[in-house]
């Protein structure tokens, strides 16, 4: 029985679909990672237009106050199990917009991320590396960070 469950974790991890949702400029490097040179489809990643079929939500860079409710709604619409990848410096602490008071500086306190990818913007290689890290977490059966906590559970959106 244990072996069959492992197989499902393995199957889940090798076909990650991500919700196509861009909150900021890092989505440009995400597009490059989709492109022919880096071609993340080799690893089983595929962007899908609807969150209903997605496994991974990418926070692509800055999260402004206005887009946060949309981000949370998108996350809520995704089926379990779901994972979050935070791209770029902005999604960690505001990055270059740290002084800008209209940008949320702690988006991952609200919606905790499983993997952070550093850079402004991160290079496509780094993005693929980060997604491989998600695969590893799924294979090991680690529950996603957002299901364990985060301010989003108390918020109305």
């Amino acid at each position, binding site marked *: 029985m244990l072996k069959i469950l492992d197989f499902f974790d393995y199957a889940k991890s090798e076909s990650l679909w991500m919700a196509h949702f*861009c909150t900021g400029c890092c989505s*440009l490097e995400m597009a490059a990672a989709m492109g*022919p040179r880096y071609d993340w489809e080799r690893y089983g990643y595929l962007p899908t237009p609807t969150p209903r079929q997605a496994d991974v939500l990418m926070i692509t860079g800055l999260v402004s*106050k206005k887009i946060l409710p949309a981000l949370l709604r998108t996350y809520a619409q995704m089926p379990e199990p779901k994972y979050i990848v935070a791209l770029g410096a902005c999604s960690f602490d505001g990055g270059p*917009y740290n002084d*800008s*008071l209209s940008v949320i500086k702690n988006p991952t306190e609200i919606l905790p991320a499983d993997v952070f990818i550093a850079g402004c913007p991160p290079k496509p290689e780094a993005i693929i590396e980060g997604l491989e890290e998600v695969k590893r977490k799924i294979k090991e059966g680690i529950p996603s960070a957002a299901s364990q906590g985060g301010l989003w559970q108390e918020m109305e959106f």
Partner: protein
Amino acid sequence: MQSIKDILNSFDCEFVEDYKKVWVKAKLNSKDDLLSVAKKLKENGLRSLSTVSPTDFLEDNIMEINYFFEDLDTKRNLWLKLDLPRESETCNIESLTPIFPSANWHEREAYSMFGVDFLNHPDLRDIIKSEDFTGKSPFRKDFDWEAHEKDNLTNVQTIVDAFKKEQAENEVDLDTDSSETILNWGPTHPASGPIRLRVHCDGEDIIGIDPDIGYVWRALEHLITKKDFIGAIVSVERLCFMDNINSMTAYAMAVEEIADVKITPFASWMRVLLGEVARVSSHFMGLGMFFNNMGLHTLAMWNMDTREFFLDFLESYSGARIATASVEPGGVRYGLDMAMFNELQLAIEKFDSSIGEVEAIFVKNPTMKLRAVDVGVLSAQEIHEFGLSGIVARASGVKTDIRIDEPYAAYAELDLDYIIQKDGSAKDRFEMLFHELKQSVNIIKKAKKKIEENVASGEMNPTKDHMVKVPKKLPKGEAISRVEWARGEVLMHLVTQEKAKTPYRLKIRAPSFNHTMMLDHLLQGQTLSDIPLIFGSLYICQGDLDR
């Protein structure tokens, strides 16, 4: 130019003077004259109002408003200033929107950010700023941001409540017996990016569109005033990541004008070279997005392949593929190792070998032509009235290109021609992108050759000539600069105070703002399936839309 000065001299002006080669700068004494001046200017041929930029002088208790008028045909421009009192009850002025439709959103922006009241504006609502700022003026110097942002989650709740209220009102306002409804297109639509269009439609027919923007509002213009003159380039280049180099060039030119610094020929050629590389990488994305929005992803993939080679050059030059921070006041940030040109040569060869296929398969694509030929047509008249620029303007046959009209960097030494199309449809805008792409690569070739020749003959030193020193403290002054950005005209208005270490005010006029304003006009009477196509053809980037 003389006729503009004659008009202004017939009114009560503090000064009327020449500014640079193609500008007249003037200041009106009384705000009551504004409407009659504007009417006469329009009769004289100044048909576009580029932007409205208030500057808040807290100590003098003055709200200064700057109007930038442009004539795209004869290349005459006017910078008109006007003082208003700061107090919110009296800080009002007649709206110019009835005369210049292009002023519409720019006046709404000034109203939202500075609380300037525009009398007789047809639709004076908040724009860009989120709902938690309703009734506040965040860009005024005495606005307390820290107090406002103390409890950010409550602010988010305000935004959520406003959104829910709007959705509930939509349900009530619309007659349940009819088939009219309001659809939200975005912010999660794959073709939209972070923008939401409220599409009022009856079945499949569109009645009207009201864009809701501000999803990536970073308050860049406010953020820049907290940084020093060099640090500000980090914010300026994040105007939009697709073409970040030309926006840095605009900012650097404004600082250099105030500091009275002249850059070296090597730096100006490097600005041309880097700017065109950025333009190429941006146009590749634009071409790909157009076909993506029609449902075919092959072109985007092909373009991404070639684009990587140009990004390789930027990476070897600056260390970053996209956020290069490579242009700064005084020149360009890094010296050049001539071996880096090998990468550029590779990119050019890749481009030359693959562009023929793109033309044969996609630009001459019969299905695309059938689909896009009569959609989203803009006449030359509309280009003037709504102040559109860049490829959108040239696709309708309007000859406007800042690289030729008001040459900066080393563009004056290049023999450039206007590339135009006639009809102004979505298809023409797509073809414009393609032809400009080829033009940009030609410019890259010329600039590369020029630098190589001059380095070989010893006239340029690529490791030492790249920078001249710009003082850390700047004198009191103000300057405007314009560049031809990938998407159109970027105008920056920089104001500094005495012994300034930081910019006092930087207004960025970005082209996508005007182009998004056209969506309602273009999509009325069309069907829902035209939205992605027209949206994609206008080449909009949310980064410079919201700033």
